């Protein structure tokens, strides 16, 4: 056994490991840990970003309160490189404590660049946790997968009983505007949603343009844009689904359902904007049902 054949465990990378190497061990890790807590002061409850630790090129901007001091704590996650290349290992952890309310988004699309000549993969792990009475809105801007990109994206959501969470993952495969379709590479997305230690929703989405499922109707059906929106903790799931069906124009490219306490909206089509608009509209319908307040669209989405 040569040491070269042994991959470095991602989290074992030292700070001194600059990642400036171009062989099969290319590695650059970055992590972000955020904790939101509700603080009581002058009879008011305010959500504070009580803990923020970062390592490598992942940051947050100062939190702000566009919905008022008692409203959601809005935070933008920044990843200055703007995307993932071979060897990158991003780890994002966000925890929302009892009765706190946070909205997380990003200022731009997350790009998944073509793999290097060694075909080294990147990894992105997102771990979201919500305590009883807490609410987390996880609304990142879309992910754009460049042709030849290789890596895994895993999202784990751990909810206490009585926690609420809404989130989405919107992905565009290839860059149709530049006539650069996604024809090689392999991306795997995994979702894992747990409550009380039991899985409520598990999903695996391997995206391999050379597999029959990529064009087969049972699979991707040739779709170059896709989205999944999840929401847990609604008082009346059936009413929420009816309201979304009434608000979003009917098409066979999207549908909504509920199973085991999770409402799921899925989109499979070819238009990033259509995927985004459907998800945003569904979120705007859901918001008052979750908090009693209208959706407050992050201004960064409009720029």
């Amino acid at each position, binding site marked *: 056994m040569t040491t070269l054949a042994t991959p470095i465990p991602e989290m074992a990378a030292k700070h001194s490991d600059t990642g400036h190497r171009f062989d099969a061990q290319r590695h650059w890790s970055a992590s972000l840990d955020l904790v939101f807590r509700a603080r009581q002061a002058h009879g008011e409850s305010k959500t504070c970003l009580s803990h923020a630790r970062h390592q490598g090129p992942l940051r947050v901007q100062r939190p702000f309160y566009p919905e008022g001091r008692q409203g959601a704590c809005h935070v933008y996650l920044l990843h200055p490189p703007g995307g993932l290349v071979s060897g990158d290992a991003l780890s994002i952890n966000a925890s929302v404590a009892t009765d706190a309310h946070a909205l997380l988004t990003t200022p731009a699309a997350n790009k998944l660049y073509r793999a290097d000549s060694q075909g080294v993969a990147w990894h992105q792990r997102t771990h979201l946790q919500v305590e009883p009475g807490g609410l987390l809105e996880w609304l990142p801007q879309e992910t754009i997968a460049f042709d030849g990109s290789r890596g895994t994206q895993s999202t784990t959501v751990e909810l206490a009983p009585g926690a609420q969470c809404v989130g989405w993952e919107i992905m565009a495969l290839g860059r149709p505007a530049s006539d650069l379709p996604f024809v090689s590479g392999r991306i795997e997305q*995994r979702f894992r*949603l747990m409550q009380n230690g*039991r*899985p*409520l*929703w*598990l*999903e*695996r*989405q*391997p995206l391999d343009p050379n597999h*029959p*499922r990529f064009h*087969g*109707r*049972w*699979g*991707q*059906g040739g*779709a170059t844009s*896709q989205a999944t929106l999840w929401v847990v903790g609604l008082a009346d799931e059936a009413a929420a689904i009816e309201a979304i*069906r009434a608000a979003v124009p009917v098409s*066979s*490219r*999207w*549908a*909504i*359902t*509920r*199973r*085991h306490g999770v409402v*799921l909206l*899925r989109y*499979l089509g070819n238009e990033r904007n259509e995927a985004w608009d459907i998800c945003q509209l569904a979120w705007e319908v859901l918001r008052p049902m979750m908090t009693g307040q209208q959706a407050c669209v992050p201004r960064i989405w409009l720029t």
Partner: protein
Amino acid sequence: MPIDEPLRRDDDLALLGLLQLVSPALPIGAFAWSQGLESAFELDWVTDEASLGDWLEGVLDDGLTHCELPVLLRQQHAWAAADSDAIAFWDDWLQANRETAELAAEDRRLGEALARLLRSLDRLPVAPSLPGGAGYATVFAWTAHCRDVPVRQTLLGFAWAWLENQLAVACKALPLGHTAAQRLVEQLRPSLVTAVDKALTLDDDDLGPALPGLALASALHETQYSRLFRS
């Protein structure tokens, strides 16, 4: 060889037990469910014998091979070891992988119906007992275990019952001719064997269906104007 006779008799009883379990005459109402196939007809995704063959090959490989079949293997071993934690774990795992309301309901209803039948035959497991709300695969694996069906045959039987049921749906709703259905059986019989071979080798990490189109079709079925099937 008189010594082998009781063994042969056990094998025969196991085979008959499997045939009984996978028979369309088993009163659990499997005929009422289409697993998104009726919606695929409505959407014009599946329109004839050839496109139905592609759909079934795809669902077999990206669905059953990575989901129900390897779970049956794990559940039958868990029943043999009376490992209630493993039984509950894989039952939860399979239900969490159900993509839509109708696919989840199908699993639960078939599991309930089979458990009800076993109760009236006095064949329910006692220690450990069935987990509450056990899904179809969990109850199916128990039935196969208590009849001493070899694991490989359990998987083949389950996949066979799935194929027959999907073709019955197509004969009713596409409609597909009965001879065409038998041609598809001939085409897919080797694929069932390949699927079982593969399912027996997969690691836990490789498991999970990858059927986004089927999931979309199944969710669209909830609002389909006219429906013969419950999924």
